[in-house]
């Protein structure tokens, strides 16, 4: 179910009413059923994958805890959990990619187009809930989290619908206990949650979806364009993906907040970062911190083999996003930027803030070319033609009506302007704390903007594909 759909507009009030009307002991069961319905709205069969990984991880967690003092047994259960989770991920997400690469390397013949490998459909949100599940067993193994004995609570930890399909990827210490608490409906939670939702919808429906029309027009047929058209589409994609994904995260946070739950902040004005490493501390924070905690630091962090560690972490991060060479290159390039950043820090620090922000943006945006391009061939064409035939009238070749350019530009500036003005990504919190008259005016202003400049075609969220 999409957050920006009519189905969700009906679903969410039903969940709110049902959750708070039911006696406490039935609420988790109701929330789990609602989450199942939310997930099954996309593809009912894939709920079985979730059920399977939940069962394995739940049991593995208990066994790891039972075997305290027997490190080898604990390890066995941890591996069992990792194999179950990563195995599902490998099969559904990477099987076709791995086979294609092997066939290229060793001249194997590819499986026929009607084979099971060629027709695997990626279960929605698989990468997200797999990583969240892994963080649970690893934390239990590390002794930082008690094994959960209530299967309902553990199932909700993985399946809580606001963050089920595109995060934030929560840690058990932050989320698990919240399912054991008694949540009371409060007007404070409701109005703050609704503000997060509205702000997220603005970012998604008004900023990202309007920009996507321009970006898609160019990136679907990049060979038809050169120079400024490619540049503008690449710059706009940076803001499209930010509006899309941070919008989703805000809606998720708001939805959870209305029900009395607290999810982590996933974005913190990333495009105002003054260095590449700062960008990665502000962009998709829940995933970046996951890779830091479970890959980068165990590899040695910045103490030894810094380049290797950064390289592996970012290459894996790239592959996490998609089974495609473009994502791999995107990850590696970002790793190189972060590596270079370490040695450029003294120099970067002396730059005026605006210049540092601009350089960081250009570097990050360059990498986005690989993320957005459908193939490596397209990405290389775009890079090769970014500076060719630099004529402003090349923008006129993009088949977009003038009003859409104006709306997209104005709304992008509005979003960045507001974020710049409040100096952090907690706009809804500041909005919530402002004077009543300001609250009401801004609420109506935002509603008006969403209604009249939003895209109501239920466009999916970019990160749903991961």
């Amino acid at each position: 179910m999409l957050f920006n759909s009519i189905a969700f507009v009906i679903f969410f009030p039903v969940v709110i009413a049902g959750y708070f009307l039911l006696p406490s002991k039935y609420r988790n069961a109701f929330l789990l059923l609602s989450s199942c319905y939310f997930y099954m709205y996309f593809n009912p069969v894939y709920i079985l994958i979730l059920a399977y990984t939940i069962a394995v991880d739940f049991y593995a967690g208990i066994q790891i805890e039972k075997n305290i003092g027997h490190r080898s047994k604990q390890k066995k259960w941890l591996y069992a959990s990792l194999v179950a989770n990563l195995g599902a991920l490998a099969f559904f997400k990477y099987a076709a990619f791995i086979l294609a690469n092997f066939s290229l390397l060793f001249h194997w013949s590819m499986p026929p187009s009607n084979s099971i490998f060629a027709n695997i459909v990626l279960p929605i949100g698989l990468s997200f809930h797999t990583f969240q599940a892994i963080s649970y067993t690893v934390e239990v193994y590390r002794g930082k989290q008690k094994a959960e004995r209530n299967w309902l609570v553990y199932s909700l930890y993985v399946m809580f619908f606001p963050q089920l399909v595109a995060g934030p990827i929560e840690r058990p210490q932050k989320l698990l206990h919240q399912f054991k608490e008694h949540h009371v409906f409060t007007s404070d939670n409701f109005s703050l949650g609704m503000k997060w939702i509205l702000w997220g919808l603005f970012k998604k429906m008004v900023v990202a979806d309007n920009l996507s029309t321009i970006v898609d027009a160019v990136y679907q047929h990049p060979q038809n364009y050169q120079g400024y058209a490619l540049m503008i589409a690449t710059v706009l994609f940076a803001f499209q993906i930010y509006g899309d994904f941070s919008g989703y995260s805000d809606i998720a946070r708001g939805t959870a907040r209305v029900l009395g739950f607290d999810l982590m902040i996933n974005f913190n004005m990333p495009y105002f970062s003054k260095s590449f490493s700062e960008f990665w501390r502000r962009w998709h924070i829940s995933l970046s911190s996951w890779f830091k905690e479970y890959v980068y630091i165990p590899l040695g962090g910045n103490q030894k083999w810094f380049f290797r560690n950064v390289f592996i972490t970012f290459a894996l991060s790239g592959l996490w996003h998609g089974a495609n060479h473009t994502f791999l290159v995107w990850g590696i390039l970002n790793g190189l930027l972060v590596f270079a950043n370490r040695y450029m820090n003294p120099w970067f620090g002396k730059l005026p803030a605006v210049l540092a922000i601009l350089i960081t943006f250009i570097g990050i945006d360059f990498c986005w070319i690989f993320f957005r391009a459908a193939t490596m061939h397209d990405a290389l064409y775009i890079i090769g033609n970014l500076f060719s035939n630099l004529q402003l009238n090349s923008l006129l070749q993009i088949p977009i009506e003038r009003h859409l350019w104006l709306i997209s530009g104005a709304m992008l500036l509005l979003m960045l302007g507001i974020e710049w003005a409040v100096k952090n990504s907690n706009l809804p919190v500041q909005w919530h704390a402002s004077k009543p008259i300001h609250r009401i005016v801004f609420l109506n202003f935002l509603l008006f903007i969403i209604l009249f400049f939003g895209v109501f075609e239920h466009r999916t969220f970019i990160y749903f594909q991961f």
Partner: protein
Amino acid sequence: MAALRKIIIRLLLVTSPCWVFCSYLEFKLNALENSYSYKMNQFIVNEKATELLVLGNSEMLKGLNPSYLSSRGFNMAHVSQTYSIDEKILAMYLDSMPNLHTVILGLSYLSFGENLETGEEAWRTAFYEKHYKLNLNQGFELKNYAAIFRYTPYESLKIFLSGFKTNLTKGFQPNGYLLVPANEQGSLSDENAMARATAHTAGLKESNKQKSTEALGQIIQMLAQKNISLWLVTPPLMKNYKSNLNEKWLSENQNLLDSMIKKNTSKIFVVSPETMNYPVFAESDFSDVNHLNEHGAQKFTHYIDSLIKIQVTQ
């Protein structure tokens, strides 16, 4: 629950400026005449007396003016109107036209390959649902219930900013025909013709053929049962547009049509420039590369009328 009730009331109150404005806009938009409501209102006035009905897409809407027909006609064609819509219009309104003896249905390059319900012009379906009362099985869509979404919120705002003075029925005549004045000619250049033909070809989908064929089959059956003649008519096109069309698609359509006609013994007449001696259409007869203007429509309607008269006398 009292808290929930209280906050919902408060929410409605604080957002009231937005809802009041939307309600006002919705009310005014619903009162606004558009081409669909105008055509339907005119049709209701004329339905009992209608002897000849024109159906099809924009080529027929702008290409056939019932004022120049010997019989009393009404042009029910519209932009991007597919056979599937034509069939639903006939199914809905055929019984309300007791004097109908002829239906002229457009036979265009796009006829078998488009699907209004899923194509780029899908927004038009809501107007058919609202004003023509057609059931297009679109499921729950906001545009079927709110004028703001039917016109799209952005267009609605533009209409509001124009003081609701936007003329959405410009050129539409009481007989349903859309008159394009001769002095409002678009580009007839070779480049434009090629671009248009390419865009039209890109919009054609093999998967739409079945639905269109079934709809045409239904139309043939419906009219045969009532002994009403069906004229499948191809309006003239500019040469530079026609030469850029996909020949294979055209011949496949022709074969499809031939096989359908062979199966039926009812009164079906096919009029196309390939099989008939059309009068000469000059550049001054076109409003753009595939649409006639008022002069072209007059010439073409006279020609079709003469063919129908010959058939009637035989």
